[in-house]
């Protein structure tokens, strides 16, 4: 077990800068998820930790060792790949034992670890099979078992569930969380799926354009996004943003409603999540465009002063396109962002 410290790590591919001086600390036994859209640099950062990419600048520490100059095999890590990378010419047993044999462990110890991790991942009946005889979920289990058997300081996972279908992903997600919690290993997990990130992580680092926008626990990221990007990226549907201006009296006006707000600047964006709206005669005038009944609730896409505005309403509410709803944000759930920098005000 070990903590990870990433200090001013940057990565350039020719003229393209994939990572801009990243600083991040991951505590021992923490489950950190790197979350972001495609091309944001999350996989590059993971690969730099693994030693599969060389940083253009900066330092990577695992435990008390600086590792950015070390090859992957000397970093005390194990990695689960998006396509699992289960070796097709080896049986499941030999796949799990592969790294143990490289460590030249005694056969009895190899047997013990293979059986233990196979039992943990419920694949003990598959040990004699080859990769081609396994389903996607079984391969994923083998890949995780292979990583766990190494008893590494750090487990790195690069979108390990993205190749599974939705139902299986749901099942594997819960199982993975249990197994990794049991192993008490520091884990860095890359995904673009915010639900996966929210459900698995002790802490989420949201990445955008080679920067970490925010690294905090899932609820904090959801409730108090540090930037407008995070507010728009996390949550389905995403946050609503309404331009606001400050009046002479210091109060903010947004779409005809007045609010108390930060005492900084003249223009800000008011942000509120769709589920934090209540119907109120004094609220924003929202013209309903689309209604999506989702069972427990209804997703309403409307327009407020010509801008898209979404609300999650109780499914008991009868709404039809063209209706004008009065939607007011819950005061304690309003957030403010500087439209210039995108940062929370």
């Amino acid at each position, binding site marked *: 077990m070990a903590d990870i410290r990433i200090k001013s790590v940057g990565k350039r591919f020719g003229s393209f800068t994939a990572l801009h001086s990243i600083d991040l600390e991951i505590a021992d036994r923490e489950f950190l998820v790197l979350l972001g859209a495609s091309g944001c640099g999350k996989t590059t950062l993971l690969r730099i930790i*693994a*030693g*599969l990419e060389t940083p253009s600048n900066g330092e990577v520490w695992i435990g008390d060792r600086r590792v950015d100059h070390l*090859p*992957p*095999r000397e970093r005390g*890590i*194990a*990695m689960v*790949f*998006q*396509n699992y*990378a289960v*070796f*097709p*010419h080896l049986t499941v047993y030999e796949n799990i034992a*592969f*790294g143990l044999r*490289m*460590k030249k462990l005694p056969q009895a110890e190899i047997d013990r670890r293979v059986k233990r991790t196979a039992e943990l991942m*419920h694949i003990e009946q*598959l040990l004699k*099979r080859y990769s*081609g*005889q*396994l*389903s*996607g*979920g*079984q391969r994923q289990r083998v890949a995780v078992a*292979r990583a766990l058997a*190494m008893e590494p300081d750090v487990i*790195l996972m690069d979108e390990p569930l993205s190749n*599974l*279908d939705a*139902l*299986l992903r749901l*099942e*594997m997600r*819960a*199982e993975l969380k*249990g*197994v990794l919690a049991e192993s008490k290993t520091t884990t860095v997990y890359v995904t673009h799926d915010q639900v996966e990130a929210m459900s698995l992580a002790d802490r989420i680092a949201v990445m955008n354009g080679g920067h970490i926008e925010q690294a905090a626990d899932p609820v904090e990221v959801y409730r108090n996004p540090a930037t407008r990007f995070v507010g728009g990226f996390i949550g389905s549907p995403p946050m609503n943003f309404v331009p606001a201006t400050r009046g002479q009296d210091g109060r903010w006006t947004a779409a005809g409603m007045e609010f108390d707000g930060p005492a900084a600047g003249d223009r800000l964006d008011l942000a509120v999540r769709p589920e934090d709206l209540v119907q109120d005669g004094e609220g924003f005038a929202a013209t309903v465009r689309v209604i999506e009944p989702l069972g427990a609730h209804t997703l309403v896409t409307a327009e407020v002063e010509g801008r898209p505005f979404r609300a999650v309403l109780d499914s008991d509410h009868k709404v039809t396109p063209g209706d004008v709803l009065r939607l007011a944000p819950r005061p304690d759930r309003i957030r403010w962002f500087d439209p210039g920098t995108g940062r929370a005000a």
Partner: protein
Amino acid sequence: MTVAETTDNARPVVENGSVGRFLYGAAVVLLVAWVVVPLYLLLVNTLSSPDAVQGFPKTGLPTFDFGSVNFFLTYDGVGQALLNSVLAAVITMVLALVLGAPAGYALSRFDFPGKSAFRLLVLMTRAFPLPLLALPLAVMFIQVHLDDSVIGLALVHTTLALPFSVLVTFSIFSGIPVEFEEAAWTLGCNRWQGFRKVVLPLVLPGIAASGLRLHHLLERGFRGLGADGAEPDADRVPAPEPRLFAAAAEIRRRRHAGPAGADLHLRRAQIPALHVGHRQPIERDPQQGHTHADRNDFG
């Protein structure tokens, strides 16, 4: 924890019905016949007299006339030629794969400036007419005294086979996900161990197949570069590349002009037998006025 069973089903190894099995079996038989029948016909001709070979109707069975085989085995230089053939073929295949596979691997795994241009250049070598490549090679070989040698012939064939070797191995390596190697590195392997323990077992069948394919291509390789030491005299007609052969011989003649040229030793039928069993060397018999090929001596 529960084991996911709803949508996560293992892949059955074989899931064919009786019709599927029949079609599969029929396809296998057809493919085997495609290879074996021509070999059988060659064997029948080899073990039959020239009359039986040329006669009609065919029985499809050998007459067990060993004349052709005896002629082949007792013909002057055949043994040496056969050895030379085997040596040249083996050296060529080894060199082509040893030199070509790393290039194919590099093309498949690494990004470097000029990669696309390099691939195009490799391919372009196949677009040149062989004499364009062969003539400078002939000159160079004669200058460095590599002509008339097995290693010289192997080098020539290697030169011609390399583009094929590079492109085929590139394709084979590209079929192996790079994550396999990366997984091996994270599991304790260095680059060489990762290659040897993970990539090599996966690419070996493909490389073996490309080696065989190389051998087949060599059959089409040019002959008469001069490595066999023969000249375009009335005693012998180099069928595939007469102009090339003549040019190479002319170079040799100039080089050996004078008393030294008189020492030029003509080792008949040495290298043309590289293709024994694939294609007949065509040599005129001065006494009978027809070729050995006409007589079908080599089957």
